[in-house]
């Protein structure tokens, strides 16, 4: 396993956002974490990256326990985290944003041109406009920049939160194609997505969170074959039918 999350309970203050969640992400796969908003997906990524300490449970990355390791160290172990809302540095140029991707790498600056070459292939638009301020890029370009910057840290595991947030479907298609290429280059991908249909087709494994608990774990084909899980989680198909609404 590339990554194992074992029985994690976590939250902010006294509250629990995640309750006893366990997932396994196989090496080289694309895994997707689904569920309605507020289900705890973002928190789970933060726990893995080290931004949020779990109250109980363990995080194991490449057979080493990394529970509680802060983000500035997990990135050096090979975990790149593209946060919700992309987290680009809006007042810095595209080039400077990409440079930050090399911050954690020793002597990274010298190899900047080589490094940027690889992401330029993936997202040519970034190479065309190195001096544009990141804040003035479109949403899709910002997402590309955030992913490219994450890739420059040479991750083994790339985690992307809300890939499609606020993006037009056509742009999302392009990003998904890029992710496929990234996977083929040997990077394991953990994708948080609100729109299940977008990603189930290309994901290998899928997890569904609801109210902070894991309600499904399996291959994405299993989830496709079992639509009531998703419909239940997102639109309350099951429960609302059982409950009689009494206006």
């Amino acid at each position, binding site marked *: 396993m590339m990554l194992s999350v074992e029985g994690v309970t976590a939250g902010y203050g006294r509250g629990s956002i995640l309750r006893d969640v366990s997932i396994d992400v196989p090496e080289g796969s694309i895994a997707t974490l689904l569920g309605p908003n507020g289900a705890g997906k973002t928190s789970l990524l933060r726990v893995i990256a080290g931004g949020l300490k779990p109250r109980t449970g363990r995080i194991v990355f490449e057979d080493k326990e990394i529970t509680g390791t802060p*983000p*500035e160290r997990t*990135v*050096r172990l090979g975990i790149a985290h593209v946060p919700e809302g992309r*987290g680009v*540095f809006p*007042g810095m140029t595209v080039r400077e944003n990409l440079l930050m991707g090399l*911050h954690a790498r020793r002597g990274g600056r010298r190899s900047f041109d080589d490094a940027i070459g690889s992401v330029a292939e993936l997202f040519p638009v970034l190479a065309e406009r190195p001096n544009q301020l990141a804040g003035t890029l479109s949403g899709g370009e910002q997402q590309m920049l955030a992913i490219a910057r994450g890739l420059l840290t040479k991750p083994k595991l790339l985690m992307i939160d809300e890939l499609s947030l606020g993006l037009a479907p056509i742009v999302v298609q392009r990003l998904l194609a890029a992710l496929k290429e990234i996977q083929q280059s040997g990077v394991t991908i953990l994708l948080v997505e609100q729109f299940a249909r977008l990603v189930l087709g290309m994901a290998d494994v899928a997890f569904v969170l609801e109210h902070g608990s894991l309600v499904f774990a399996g291959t994405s084909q299993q989830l496709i074959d079992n639509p009531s899980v998703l419909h239940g989680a997102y639109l309350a198909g099951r429960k609302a039918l059982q409950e009689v609404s009494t206006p």
Partner: protein
Amino acid sequence: MDLKLLFQTILSGLISGSIYGVLGLGFVVTYKATRVLNLAHGGMAMFLAFVALSFLHRHMNYGLAMILTALVAIAMGIATDWLIMRPLRHRPPLDAAVASLGLLLTLQGLAVIIFGAQEKVFPAAVPLRFISVAGFNFSYPQLLGFGCVLVAAVLIGVLFKWTRAGTAIRAYVENPDSARGLGVSPLYVSTIAWSMAALLAALAGVMLAPLTLLDSLRMPLYSVKALVAALLGGLNSLSGALLGGLLLGVTEAYFQGYVHVRDSVNYLPFGLVVVALLFQGFQGSRKMARAA
């Protein structure tokens, strides 16, 4: 009105303003990078000037004394960060400001206890000679000081714009979570920021000391002016602090030369703060209206 006198007034205002600017830069560096309003900044400048003076009193070469002072400054900055500011990181911002005020009082007391209560004359690096350029008179120390400010400003600009550390700090200021995710540790940022602020304090201290008498009470009061300078620039902008300092310096010089009301120049800091706050409030509500 005598035009030449006016120019001379403005120029001397620019020169003293540049010192306020450098002091103001120090406030901005820590405020921007660590969100701490370091009220001890003027006290650090004073204390470091005393340190430099004590090196000079040992008949040390001026350059060597400055280098040693710079080292002491870095140590002081890092110690402030590690011993006082870091433990207060998760507390309300007021706590750090109050702690820095305590540090100011401590440094003032300590300076007298170590260096004595007497006002000290701080020797200038260059002899006090005057030079006339295009009919205007400048003293060598003034020119050197102004030159140092320019060099310091350019250096800081270069540091933030081009170096790995500078880029990392800017990134951290823009989005701390993202920056951490890329390997920038908060420790790294605050250590650099505090060292830089202390270096700026040392520079301002040794620049200011020859122009006035060095004592432990007076110099920290200059930091009131520096804070005003920083506030004029919005507390968040390096160039704004420099410009604010220059503005304050020129206004002061103008009041001293042309407004014949006793002590009128001492009303300036507060007057400018009110102006700055009103402007800031105005800008703030406009920003709100635009964004919201």
